[in-house]
């Protein structure tokens, strides 16, 4: 039941967006953070066959079924997280990057991230002055159950709260910032370990960037339709 084929025709030179009918799973193995259960992963493969040509392209990804919610607790002002409806006590570590000269390797990521899991951590926070981490980083967080808090490229020190105070309005090119943010979201959004996008470190991005990020990272309107069926927002990932 987890195999589906759709027929479509695409005009020459055109780029189209296509949504499959939703695939139903009964009691699938859920993905859990380190210490709460297994990190069950499913292999999703998408292929496109062109009539008269054969297979034209394929794409695959390891995917985990999980629902992550987080909200600010009014009593403490702290951010509370839930995974698959279960509250989780976050034991997190700060992460700047794997190597100062960007000598990044799968082997190093695997070692560093397994080390965090062995230290009984369940979250890694990627600091805004470092990188938007790479798919290989997220792959091992998926495998070892480390939730990821990923900051965009704004820090208090450099953007308006440092000594000397500088760049109060962030980078010069806000459109470029948003172009990079959109492309980064598309690169990383299918990883089950990705738990939270954060505007920056110790600083709120400039209002136009912050509003655009909040607006574009909202739940896709496609899922709003599910609301009309009386489903509460609780039931959407």
């Amino acid at each position, binding site marked *: 039941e987890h195999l*589906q*084929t759709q027929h*479509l*025709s*695409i*005009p*020459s*030179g055109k780029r*189209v*967006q296509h*949504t*499959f009918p*939703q*695939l*139903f*799973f*009964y009691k*699938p193995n*859920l993905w859990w953070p380190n210490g709460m259960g297994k990190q069950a992963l*499913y*292999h999703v*493969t*998408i*292929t*496109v066959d*062109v*009539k008269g*040509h054969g297979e*034209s*392209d394929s*794409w695959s990804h390891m*995917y985990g*079924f*999980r*629902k992550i919610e987080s909200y600010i607790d009014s009593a403490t002002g702290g951010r509370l997280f839930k995974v698959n409806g279960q509250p989780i006590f976050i034991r997190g570590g700060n992460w700047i*990057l794997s190597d*100062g*000269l*960007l*000598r990044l390797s799968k082997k190093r990521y695997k070692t560093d991230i397994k080390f965090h899991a062995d230290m009984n951590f369940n979250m890694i926070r990627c600091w*805004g*002055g*470092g*990188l*938007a981490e*790479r798919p290989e980083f997220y792959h091992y967080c998926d495998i070892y159950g480390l939730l990821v808090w990923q900051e965009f*490229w704004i820090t208090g020190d*450099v*953007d308006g709260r*440092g*000594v000397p105070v*500088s760049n109060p309005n962030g980078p010069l090119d806000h459109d470029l*910032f948003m172009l*990079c943010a959109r492309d980064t979201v*598309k690169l990383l959004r299918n990883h089950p370990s990705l738990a939270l996008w954060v505007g920056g470190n110790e600083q709120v991005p400039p209002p136009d960037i912050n509003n655009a990020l909040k607006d574009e990272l909202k739940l896709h309107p*496609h*899922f709003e339709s599910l609301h009309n069926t009386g*489903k509460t927002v609780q039931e*959407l*990932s």
Partner: protein
Amino acid sequence: MAEIGKTVLDSGWLAARSTEVHLSGTQLTTTHSPSGLDKPWMEAAVPGTVLGTLVKNKAVPDPFYGLENEAIIDIADSGREYYTFWFFTTFQCKLSANQHLDLNFRGINYSAEVYLNGNKKILPKGMFRRHSLDVTDILHPDGQNLLAVLVHPPDHPGTIPPEGGQGGDHEIGKDVATQYVEGWDWMAPIRDRNTGIWDEVSISITGPVKIIDPHLVSTFFDGYKRVYLHTTTELENKSSSVVECDLNIQVTSELEGGVCIV
């Protein structure tokens, strides 16, 4: 027919400082391609940065030992040209009819010019954006392709104040790039500000239709018993006629011991 799929280009790269190469990108990828490790060309670490390649070739001391970082000239003192580098490689690719080839860069810091077999393409500014170039029409007929990439540092590399400090003089914040590179309380300044082809380079062969950035979302009901997977993808028809195609999605789970169910 060449097999569809992605091939990572992570070996056989050469690098040279741009001020020491007196050829154009067109010449480098047609009549005067570097043949090996003749000066000023050196073996390059790609993906990697200019400084990573210089350390690999022992052209500078390792900045992470002792005070060696002080012995490496900072971009503020050398000027941006000093850390503007050529990266060169070759790759073999022969397409069949109706096949297309994309040249992909997953991360360039900070902007670049690409030359492939004498043809120039621009990779615009921004450290955290992917670039994908359809190079089908400029591949070499004999299959042996010459690729040169001229990588420019961030526009605002800044100057490190004598007292150091968090993010130096903060100039790097004017660009969309990683900010620790001007130094922080836990880190000495990175002399080239991480200029380079810092993430994966690949070529991907497709037929007429290309799959782009699928998006997977799951929704949960009845206490996680009833779960749906919603999948959206972009598709591009690169051919000059309408195409009829079948789009397939398959989800398999790996049970214990490597047994799969479909």
